[in-house]
């Protein structure tokens, strides 16, 4: 994984050199990308827990919204870490609704997820209007300023790396920028998120509990025949999923900004799902996918025009590579299409100076579509994902 990371940094340095877009790998961009990645990654992690147990969770967005509200409510009255707890609890509440509907009543998972999204949105808007109006700095659609969760900065390292970054040496400066982003103003929640990823990997792939949970998602009938309480594992998995999505929302309210705001989630629950699919339902792939989406979203916001324009060149190059690969496999028509699109994109790169604001804002969504379109065929989801399971269905 480190080699992959090094390769990406190298590629970014090359692009910066070629296109002159100098904000692609600065420490500011990388730190903002990290802050953008965490909510998507946590939401995707929630989706992973749920889908590995066989329950499709489209309601992640709703649970995230509940999390932002929970963080807003408790974070204002009792401080930052209470906000974190509030976010997790409220996210779990959303998970509880989804769990009861799908596991106990056997409702179709996607219908239940959509319903949870509708309920969560309505409930949050109603409760936010109720609890935040009249507070100083608060109102119908936003909360007052919330308590902070704290962050750490390793000053000597940060300054030294900052110097190295300014020198603008090819590749070395970008690595310095990455390291600097890691040691400057690193919020404790980011560290918590990383720990959760490691914990998830160990819990699901190195413990008996995890094995049983995953078996519920692959073949619940087999699991039940061995004595596993399938419904309880699914229930717990969906609750954990809700908690993680809530935490993602809490991160948005506490770290990415400093208030609860209506519409804060902006579809990140769904992007998290896409990241999970892209990562083939594994934590490492999920992290890579989330980083991709977080990075493109950040680029879209900072100096959007020039950075996204640089990405156009990358896209054109990748398309040419894809075309060559297709031709070598004798798929001439598809290769031809790839070349044509590459020429169009490349032409676009050379004719415009900067991508207009509206298009930079859609970068993460277009990236999601492209990634899913290209990668979906080689992925394998848990075999019994989305299956409605009734106790005693064995035999």
């Amino acid at each position, binding site marked *: 994984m480190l080699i992959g990371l090094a390769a990406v940094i190298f590629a970014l340095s090359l692009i910066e050199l070629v296109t002159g877009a100098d904000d692609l790998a600065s420490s500011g961009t990388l730190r903002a990308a990290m802050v953008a990645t965490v909510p998507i990654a946590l939401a995707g992690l929630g989706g992973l827990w749920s889908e590995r147990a066989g329950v499709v969770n489209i309601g992640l967005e709703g649970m995230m919204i509940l999390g932002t509200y929970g963080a807003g409510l408790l974070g204002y009255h009792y401080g930052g870490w209470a906000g974190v707890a509030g976010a997790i609890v409220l996210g779990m509440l959303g998970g509880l609704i989804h769990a009861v509907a799908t596991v106990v009543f056997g409702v*179709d998972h996607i219908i239940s997820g*959509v319903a949870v999204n509708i309920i969560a*949105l309505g409930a949050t808007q*109603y409760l936010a209007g109720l609890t935040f109006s009249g507070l100083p700095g608060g109102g119908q659609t936003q909360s007052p300023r919330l308590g902070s969760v704290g962050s750490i900065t390793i000053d000597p390292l940060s300054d030294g790396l900052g110097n190295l970054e300014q020198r603008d040496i090819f590749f070395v400066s970008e690595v310095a920028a990455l390291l600097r982003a890691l040691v400057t103003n690193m919020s404790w929640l980011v560290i918590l998120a990383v720990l959760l990823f490691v914990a998830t990997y160990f819990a699901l792939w190195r413990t008996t509990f995890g094995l049983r949970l995953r078996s519920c998602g692959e073949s619940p009938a087999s699991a039940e025949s061995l004595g596993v309480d399938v419904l309880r594992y699914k229930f717990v998995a969906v609750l954990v999923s809700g908690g993680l999505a809530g935490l993602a929302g809490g991160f948005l309210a506490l770290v990415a900004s400093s208030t609860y705001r209506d519409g804060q989630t902006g579809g990140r629950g769904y992007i998290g799902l896409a990241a999970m699919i892209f990562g083939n339902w594994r934590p490492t792939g999920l992290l890579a996918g989330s980083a991709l989406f977080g990075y493109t979203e950040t680029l879209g916001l900072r100096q959007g025009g020039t950075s996204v324009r640089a990405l156009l060149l990358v896209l054109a190059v990748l398309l040419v590579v894809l075309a060559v690969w297709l031709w070598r496999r004798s798929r001439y028509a598809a290769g031809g299409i790839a070349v044509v699109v590459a020429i169009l994109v490349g032409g676009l790169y050379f004719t415009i100076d900067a991508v207009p604001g509206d298009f930079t804002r859609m970068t993460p969504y277009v990236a999601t579509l492209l990634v899913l379109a290209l990668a*979906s065929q080689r992925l394998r989801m848990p075999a019994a994902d989305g299956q409605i399971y009734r106790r005693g269905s064995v035999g």
Partner: protein
Amino acid sequence: MSPRTARLVLGVAAPLLALVAAFAITSLVLLLAGDPVGLVWSTILSVPEPRNIANIINSATVLYLSGLAVAVGFRMNLFNIGVDGQYRIAAFAAAVVAGEGWLPGALNVVLTVAAAVLVGAAWAGIAGVLRATRGVSEVISTIMLNFISTSLVAYFLRRVAVREEGSNIVATREIPGSSRIPGIPLGSGPGAEVYGFVVVAVLAGIGYWFLLNRTRFGFDLRATGQSATAAVASGINVKRMTVAAMLVSGGVAGLVGLPILFGDAYSYGSTFQSGLGFAGIAIALLGRNHPVGIALGALLFAFLDEQSNPLQILADVSPDIVAITQGVIVLTVVISYEVVRRYRLRLEQQQVAQQLAEQVPA
């Protein structure tokens, strides 16, 4: 009671049970929040005036079209969550076409409707093609297309918009008077007019029923939705059906914005109503994908929306409470249908066991 009356009673019981449960849960939320439950319900359940009735029918028209669009997808087991993006981009295209007025009068209306249907279908078709060729889940692709359409429309609106003097709203050119559809007056009083487009909505409902139940295409669509393997065995090209179903769904979604465009707003601006797509999902679920059921669901949701407007003034309660009710209704309807189905199954098993026991010679 005879099996037929039992089935009838159970058929009605499910949605009733759902509504009662939803109202109970909403009341619980109101109680916990300390809001006056009785006053809220008396305001919502009060008899509406002609003006309110017209508003309800108008909202229901729009919601009905949205529900139909989603239902076409549901019948094929496709979740078209993208109705929201489809109708907005289609309404924008329609507003531009109508405003330009290339054809006179009524022909302009026909051209506009055609443009809306085509654009909506094309936007949904992207998701359909991705699903058919690359296996991309249409749930996520349609949601992504929603967000993309928001940005796309904003960009093009800036390019083609006409700013009226003295107003801050950026909108397309207004539709010429000859192309506006007149409203149907409903009793006396101001504003008691129903959109003329309600006729098209009713026709769309009839068309939906006819397409799905009386044509070969509809049969193929329903068959694929119920069992893809059986459909393949009977010679249906599932990939083509997927794309076709998404195209039809998107085409109907394109109609969603037209009642407002022709009857009220006359142009597409940055304040054009949004969020109608998600309400459509709830209504399609509520109506069980049946054209009459969707109509009743649309009327119910429109009724709740309209009657909750004065809540802020009369009871100092945020009107968002009905959003909770609507979401809970979606869940309770599906849960109650499941509960009733299991009950009916148990009843049948008991009846069969009884009949078999009687047949055994003593």
